[in-house]
């Protein structure tokens, strides 16, 4: 072997060993370069990821707390007569008790009274109303409530409004800052964890806006997506991989499935809009339709993952079962499919994670509507996590800036969790043949 190469290419007098030695340096250099490029690429990717996550965390963490004020409200029977419940001047009694806590405030002046009431979130009166409606015996007594403050004061408390800004350019005026500081001095201000972010649906008021509607909408959409894409995808993959004759038609189908996986998701949204809403008359903004659109998008991913998983099952297992007289259906369902299941589940979870973050098709079918209650069925109007992020990112109120980041963090949290489950399944069920 060495003789022939030497005779063919090497200059006379050089042995193969010399040639190998001469090329070693070049080969090592190439390897060092390759490694350096690889490390560089990974570093860049990690830096980008780090910057992304840090910028989200640095703006988003503020949204996980919410400034509250604790009030002793005298439920004045004159303002809240028992016979008019659930209507009544709840905003007025709450405002009055707040005004009583502030120095030098003339609550008879309507403008001042309105400014004082504006410290409280719009949701405060409804919180009070719900308490009183639940127990009308509270009328004429004093109740202690802890309610969110409105967004500008929340921003002030979190240091997001600069006190050095000239008064005329500042959202919160000097007298309002003085009121807030007075409340703070009395220990009425607190900043607990913002449960409302998870228990409230969307709202025009940032301090009341939460992700519940989006979480529920995403849940319904993913459930519909899973229930449709998983059985159909696995069925199609099993047929194509195990039963379909290998000919031009199955080749064509295979190519088209791979193409389908690369179709931009907005196209699936248009399809869902035209077919499911336009022809079938399904409701707009409904997670059911969103789930259908996402299922169209996820199905190719599941088919491809399932086929890969089925292919990875060693032929020796099929032969073993066939050789014992198992029918093809028994081979597939008793041997191949169970062995391929971890791979299939991994692919499915990754497909669903992709669907969870998908925005474009949901925008087209109207899942970016402003909806203030969580959907109770897949046919109710709802938003989804990515569309909620889209809506909040578009909102002008300052409070939505940190809430957008917080929502992205929640979405990323779900994605990391789903991918974590996929990795866990893969590790746990990985087989050595």
């Amino acid at each position, binding site marked *: 072997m060495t003789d022939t190469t030497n005779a063919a290419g090497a200059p006379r007098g050089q042995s193969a060993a010399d040639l190998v030695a001469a090329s070693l340096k070049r080969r090592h250099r190439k390897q060092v370069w390759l490694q350096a490029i690889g490390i560089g690429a990974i570093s860049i990717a990690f830096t980008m990821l780090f910057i992304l996550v840090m910028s989200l965390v640095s703006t988003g963490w503020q949204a996980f707390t919410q400034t509250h004020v604790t009030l002793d409200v005298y439920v004045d029977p004159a303002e809240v007569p028992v016979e008019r419940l659930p209507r009544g001047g709840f905003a007025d009694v709450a405002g009055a008790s707040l005004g009583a806590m502030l120095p030098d405030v003339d609550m008879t002046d309507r403008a001042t009274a309105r400014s004082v009431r504006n410290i409280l979130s719009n949701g405060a009166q409804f919180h009070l109303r719900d308490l009183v409606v639940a127990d009308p015996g509270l009328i004429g007594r004093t109740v202690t409530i802890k309610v969110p403050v409105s967004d500008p004061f929340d921003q002030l408390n979190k240091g997001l409004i600069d006190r050095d800004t000239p008064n005329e350019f500042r959202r919160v005026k000097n007298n309002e800052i003085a009121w807030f500081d007075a409340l703070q001095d009395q220990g009425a201000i607190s900043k607990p964890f913002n449960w409302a972010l998870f228990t409230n649906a969307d709202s025009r008021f940032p301090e009341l806006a939460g992700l519940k509607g989006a979480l529920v909408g995403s849940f319904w959409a993913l459930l519909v997506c899973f229930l449709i894409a998983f059985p159909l995808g696995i069925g199609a993959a099993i047929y194509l991989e195990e039963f379909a*004759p*290998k000919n031009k038609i199955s080749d064509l189908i295979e190519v088209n499935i791979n193409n389908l996986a690369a179709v931009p998701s907005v196209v699936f949204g248009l399809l869902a809009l035209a077919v499911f809403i336009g022809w079938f008359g399904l409701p707009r903004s409904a997670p059911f339709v969103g789930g259908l659109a996402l299922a169209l998008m996820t199905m190719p991913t599941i088919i491809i993952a399932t086929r890969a998983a089925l292919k990875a099952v*060693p032929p*020796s*297992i*099929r*032969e*073993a*079962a*066939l*050789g*014992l*007289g*198992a*029918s093809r259906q*028994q081979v597939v369902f*008793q*041997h191949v499919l169970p*062995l391929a299941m971890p791979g299939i589940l991994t692919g499915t979870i990754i497909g669903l994670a992709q669907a969870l973050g998908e925005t474009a098709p949901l925008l087209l079918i109207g899942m970016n509507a402003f909806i203030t209650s969580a959907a109770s069925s897949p046919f109710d109007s709802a938003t989804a996590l990515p569309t909620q992020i889209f809506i909040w990112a578009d909102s002008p109120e300052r409070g939505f800036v940190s809430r957008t980041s917080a929502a992205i963090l929640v979405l990323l949290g779900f994605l990391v969790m789903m991918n974590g489950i996929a990795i866990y399944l893969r590790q746990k069920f990985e*087989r050595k043949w």
Partner: protein
Amino acid sequence: MNDMRKIERDVHMTDLKIKARGVNVHYGETHAIKDVDVDIVDKTVTAFIGPSGCGKSTFLRCLNRMNDTISICRVTGQIEIDGRDINDRAVDPVQLRAQVGMVFQKPNPFPKSIYDNIAYGPRIHGLTKSKAELDEIVEKSLRRGAIWDEVKDRLNDSGTSLSGGQQQRLCIARAIATQPEVLLMDEPCSALDPIATAQVEELIDELRRDYSVVIVTHSMQQAARVSQKTAFFHLGHLVEFNNTGEIFTNPQDSRTESYITGRIG
């Protein structure tokens, strides 16, 4: 060849089990088996020998229609088992394979428990009515597979946790569990060490009492050790088929002679 173990060469039973006439196999354009005629006798070990790619495994796989699973493979000719054409439309390959068991080159236990490996065949064919009956079949098969003593205390362990030789004996036991009449073995010892090979060979000799065994092997010594009949395949032809003693001591065809003396293959 001198250390060949002497075993009984006499064929007591002369009932014909498998009769193949004019068998041709095409893989797409390749003509893999050319006009092969073979008579396989019951309760005998028949060895197929020949160089790599000579078609001996392909022919073996015709006998339980495993070639059906390869879409480009086309089998023509007549193969009868107990006088019935196995390629007849009326014959279901599932039924045929229950009757003709197979052991593969590489041990291929299911990644299930040892018990479930053996019980799988009887279960799908509905051979047992009760758990006790199934237990009995499992034990009997494992005993016949000469592996019972090694696994009786760990029937719930995975079949893949066994050593290579044990796995192969498990696969033989699994094939026996469906109570076949013919046992096909495709180079059953090629992945095994000499000790495991000896165990499996002993087992094959043992199985001859009840089954018609057809074994494909690369090793002429093995063919000489375990078989009573030997068929020599070369380039898709069945060159010579005779009693094993005759083939190895007095080959009629020059190609057979070349092969057993190590000049081709």
